[in-house]
């Protein structure tokens, strides 16, 4: 089954670029041009990973992220497991404050624009396949990976 990726960016050329990159690796790409559309799509469907811009008209990417993580007052399909959907922040705003805010809001990965497509693909592979934790920490984490309690680990990371 192909993984479904939601790409949120107000800049059409960036959406097109991400689509071109991802489609070469057989991801199924869905686009949203702003925060409202992103949340609308997110609530309506399941995505394996969300690639999210921060500086957008209307609701900012960080607000979208917090909304996703909060997972409240939404119809079914947007509860429980949907709120820990991996979110890759893909943004030009890569200053320390924004990065920190991104992490504390529950971002899985932070990629600065302009970005290397291979990088994006590698991170995407990890988030989609829930192998994110492999990237962190010393060897003992490898053992934890073996325990299979991936979602608990992920939750811990994303808080």
């Amino acid at each position, binding site marked *: 089954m192909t993984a479904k990726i939601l790409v949120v960016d107000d*800049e059409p*050329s*960036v959406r*097109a*670029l*991400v689509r*071109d*990159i991802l489609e*070469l690796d057989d991801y199924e790409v869905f686009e949203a041009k702003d925060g409202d559309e992103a949340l609308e799509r997110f609530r309506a469907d399941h995505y394996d990973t969300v690639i999210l811009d*921060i*500086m*957008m*008209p*209307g609701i*900012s990417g960080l607000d979208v992220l917090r909304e996703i993580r909060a997972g409240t007052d939404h119809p079914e399909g947007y509860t429980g497991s949907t709120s820990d959907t991996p979110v890759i922040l893909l943004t*030009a*705003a890569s200053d320390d404050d924004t990065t920190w805010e991104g992490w504390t809001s529950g971002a899985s990965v932070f990629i600065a*624009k*302009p*970005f*290397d*497509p*291979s990088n994006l693909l590698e991170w995407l592979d990890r988030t989609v396949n829930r192998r994110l934790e492999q990237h962190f920490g010393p060897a003992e984490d490898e053992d934890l990976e073996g325990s299979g309690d991936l979602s608990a680990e992920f939750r811990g990371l994303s808080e």
Partner: protein
Amino acid sequence: MAEATPATDEQEHPGKSGVFTVVAVVLVAGLLAVALTGLVLSSVTIMPYYYEGDALWPYLLFLLFAAVAEVFYVPLRHGDAQEQLTFFEAVLLIGVLIFAPVIALVLPLVGFLVAGLALGLNTRKILFNLGSYALGSAALVLAYVVVFPDGGEFSVISVIGLLVGGMLFSGINMLLLAWILNADQGVPPGEFIREQWLMSLVMAVGSVGIAATAVALAQTTPVLTPFALLPAAALWLAYNSSAQQNAALERNRWIIRLNTAVSQPRSTTHMAENAAHALRRVFEADDICLMADGVTLRADEPGEQLEPHPPAELDHRLVSFATAQPRAIPTALLPPNWRSGVAVELVLADDERGALLLGATRRPAGLDRVLPWASGTWQLRDVDRPVLQALTASMAGALRAGQHLTALTEETAKLTAVVDHATNGIAVYGADGSVLMWSPAMATISAVPAADARAATAAPVLSLQELADSVRGTRGVNNAELAVVRDDGTSRDLNVSVVWIDDTGSSLGHNTAGALAILTVQDVTRERQAERAKSDFIATISHELRTPITPIKGYAQLLSTRWEQMPLAKREKVLRTISDKADHLSRLVDDLLLASNVSGSQGEAKLTIEPSDVPATELTDLAVAGFPDLRGRIERTDHDCVLRCDRDRAVQCLGNLISNAGKYSEPGSVIRVVTHPCEGESYVEIAVHDHGRGIPGDELGRVFDRFYRVEDPMTMTTGGSGLGLYISRELARAMNGDILAESTLGSGSVFTLRLPISRSPASGADTEAR
């Protein structure tokens, strides 16, 4: 004994017109009285008199007596005026008893005049006394003749006549003296007469006694006649010692006043004003000079207050000449017009000296002037030397204190000026938290007037506790930047420093009980705003620059890694995107460069304008052509005319306005581009109307600011650099035009490009022909 009344000591109040009037009236009245009396007495021979001989010497002796009587006077001070007690009346009475009444009347007056001139008395004094004596003498002689018309030996009647005459003489003199003292010194006449009447009476009786005794002795035992002078001498000595005692008392009072004057901290000028009069009085000097503190003070006229004088007038060697002991000033060093003087040193500081000079400008009056053994000049009396020395020392002390006080006052004034004009707000809080000082800048920054801040009722916008909490530190200076919301609702960014000091002014490390807090507040609102604008701009620019770079870099890397996997059409599309984005990036960089050029007002970096004649329609054509996607939405109203402008720049300006209209208005809404002439056909305006959200009034003026954008950069809806309108307006102005903005919130904005119409129709036609 007679009472003489040389009234005004002319030193003190020169030039009083009232005094002149009195003198003139008295003189005229006196001379008239003498003339009339002389006329009456010479026409009627009513009584025999004692001497009718032909020899001249008794008359000369009588004249001499009159003159000498004037010389031996006893000075009596009345305020600033001096009265002189003399034996004139006694001489006059002797004359009445011996000579014909006219001789007795005129000779003493002549004697008085000779003595007055010889002694160098003041003219006014002589004239007043002459008039006063003349009136009194006429009254005396007339009274005696009327009471005792028969003449002959002494009898009760003749003694009564003498007493009546003497009393008339004394009374008239007393009244006239009261009059002139009142005119000159403001002495109440009633008071003066109450004080004087008894003495006048006693003197009248005494004079009669002396005269009668002398004449009686001469008649009976001529050998003993000179001894008749003894009671006069005794009386003179008694009066003299009494007068001297009075003078000493008076002088003591002046010394006390002088002491008070020099015991308080004074500036040199103040000191001089307070001490000058007393100094002159105590030491009987005509003039004083004070050389201290870089100023020299001297009165222009004797009796005037001391005033600063050009230092050149006083020889500055006097300062080094003066010693702690009063020294007589050598002639070479004397101040101008001085006849003699002494100098005393004033020790003002360890290395600073001044001098006090006392001296005389006039020749001495009285015997000192005529007696061969008198010095003829003013001298400091030996008894006065220690007094002067002591006074000078305490004067120097007061001047030193005065200098310190002046320095302190000046220092305080400077500090106050610094506080008042400092751009940083300064406030001082007392130990109880009350505001002790609130500088004008503080009032401006905090929007709390000083009066309100000091009043306990209005809590200053910066409460000490709040600040102390915010500005907590362990060092002497505690600094913090605070955002303060003022009473008027506006917010200011303030850089606040607090220093705690104790009451000696030493800095304390921290707030302790009883400490004063000195607050310095710098308003950094504008700086922070500029910083925010700058960081907003940098955030914007970095976002704007990254936006096209992202697809360029991403696609380039994609091509290099996945070339094989990509179909040809895809590769072409990707390469086109890269090219487009590179163009966009290039335009952005051009914009930035242009912006920095138009803002660089000096040097060759300033952008160049190449004006030519451009038809307005052509300009609009070119500008609109740049926006193919807006073509369907643009409605044009053209006006045929030729503009004088740089074609490319003008197109850039108008294009920017159209681009903005497209960006900021509802999709599909109409954009109207209206060309119309204005200002007497010398300008044409091309107005671009949109139907966007409009711009709030307070932001409308700022849309032309560099890097200013209506939206927050984090949520902006447009991809502008924040430079477009700024650049466009700068360009328009460089072409002698302008860009104007109007907006109605909710219904849209109008941005108008105004450009000058070409003034050469030929070239305009030429352009059109092309």
